[in-house]
């Protein structure tokens, strides 16, 4: 769409995110290039959701910083949506127009756009249905319609295809590719590796520590995946205070370095310390 501003790159500088001082993402450096179609891959508890929350501005950094600009659309994995609320599908999707309609302006003149967005996710004819009557997958698609209407230069998706049938996943992947072609930055946390290999040019493999970041074919190697699995999921109550570099300290890696894979298995922050 023509009004779209170019997305700004998202820079992660010595980024540590977590809960109660326990890091869920540990010393991550790098840049999500503007216009990238990036898959976030890693085992459960690897920090994928946490990283997306951080980039969306939902949680504060424990250390380091995220440099981002412009409007960011974010679809969380576990939404906080009250589905018993008496709201129609049309109104739910229409929320995506907030930036254009704000508090006051009517949504009637956007009705065509809302219907088109619902049709794009296969929900045409569902406009008047209360959101509580949708199935899990249909509801997810309604959220995608809202995302379409948000029309943001940067889109963050946390396991977006959970519970959606195969045919719709194909449609939605086509939508992601179209967004990519339009120059938007799209970051999606995913578990289906074949899907990632087929559709995502670049990948960040995360296991609390960044394991590898770069072109998908070079990241999703058996070696890297085994290393990601080996990194512990445990949350150690007695963990020592991290001796790694402070977020603003100079780093071995340049801002645009995606070569986090060290053949000898070192983590980058250990080297820098």
């Amino acid at each position: 769409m023509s009004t779209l501003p170019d997305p700004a790159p998202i820079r992660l500088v010595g980024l540590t995110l977590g809960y109660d001082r326990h890091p869920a993402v540990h010393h991550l450096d790098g840049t999500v290039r503007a216009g990238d179609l990036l898959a976030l891959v890693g085992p459960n508890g690897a920090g994928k959701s946490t990283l997306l929350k951080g980039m969306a501005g939902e949680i504060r950094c424990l250390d380091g910083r995220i440099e981002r600009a412009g409007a960011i659309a974010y679809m969380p994995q576990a939404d906080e949506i009250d589905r018993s609320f008496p709201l129609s599908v049309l109104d739910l999707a229409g929320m995506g127009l907030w930036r254009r309609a704000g508090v006051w302006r009517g949504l009637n003149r956007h009705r065509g756009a809302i219907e088109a967005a619902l049709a794009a996710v296969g929900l045409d004819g569902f406009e008047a249905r209360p959101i509580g009557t949708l199935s899990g997958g249909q509801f997810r698609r309604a959220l995608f319609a809202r995302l379409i209407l948000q029309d943001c230069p940067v889109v963050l998706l946390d396991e977006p295809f959970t519970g959606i049938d195969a045919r719709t996943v194909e449609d939605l992947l086509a939508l992601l590719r179209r967004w990519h072609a339009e120059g938007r930055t799209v970051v999606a946390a995913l578990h289906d590796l074949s899907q990632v290999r087929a559709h995502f040019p670049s990948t960040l493999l995360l296991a609390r520590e960044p394991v590898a970041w770069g072109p998908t074919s070079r990241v999703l190697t058996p070696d890297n995946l085994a290393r990601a699995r080996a990194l512990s999921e445990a949350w150690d109550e007695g963990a020592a205070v991290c001796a790694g570099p402070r977020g603003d300290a100079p780093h071995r890696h340049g801002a645009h370095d995606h070569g986090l894979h060290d053949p000898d298995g070192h983590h980058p922050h250990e080297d820098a310390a």
Partner: protein
Amino acid sequence: MIEPFGSLVAPFVEFGFMRRALAGCLALSVSAPPVGVFLTLRRMSLMSDAMSHAILPGAAAGFLVAGLSLPAMTLGGLVAGVAVALLAGAVTRATVVREDANLAAFYLISLAAGVLLVSLRGSQIDLMHFLFGSVLALDDAALSLLGAISTLSLMALAVIYRPLVMECVDPLFLRTVSRSGGPVHLAFLALVVVNLVGGFQALGTLLAVGLMLLPAVAARFWARDLGGLIPVSMLIAAIASVSGLSLSYRFDLPSGPAIVLAAGALYVASMLAGPRDGLLCRLGRQRHLEA
């Protein structure tokens, strides 16, 4: 047909104090039920109950300072209501106790403190007025206050309607697109307090939530979306006001409780006969559709 209608209207034609009571209650019926609709949808019914009790010590403090003065009691009630709403939220964030437990604690403390404060200076009759209101003794100042509250609260609700709905449905989404979530939530709490202070004038601290919540809950059995729920709840509140007042006149009952009981009767009737999931509807369930 004329006779029951006549007896419904007669007390209002005949007596000025009945007309005042009716005007006050209708003003409340327009402004409080929509707030109640949002309260029930957000599962905050208990919150409104606690806040209505919290108004008592504030109003009582005003009464201690200035006697039965409307501005002093109103101001005291507003301050106490807002304070408890904010305190309950802050304490919940700072401690492990859940919000409803905190609200229950606050509401017991404020009820006891309020009764104590009123009794320091006032008589049993004053206390009854505080607890159950004095809708038949609304003077010009109280009527103007109710009118102002009703007007302001409808206008405010219109202004914050869209972000309020978004905050109810998907607070996380509202956070990502706008910073209005916090202010809207506070504005909504302020609306609850203001309407409870209005209800306090007419129905007293124990029943002030009556015209706010009962019509809102009853409306759930008649309408499916907000566009229906809000007008239906207003209508139910208005019917409860008229019938409660005229029944209280006819059978010499205390008016505040009569109005709330009328609203309660409408709730029970809606639960039985309402077309949306009413009990009778469920009994006479129709066969499922083709698609």
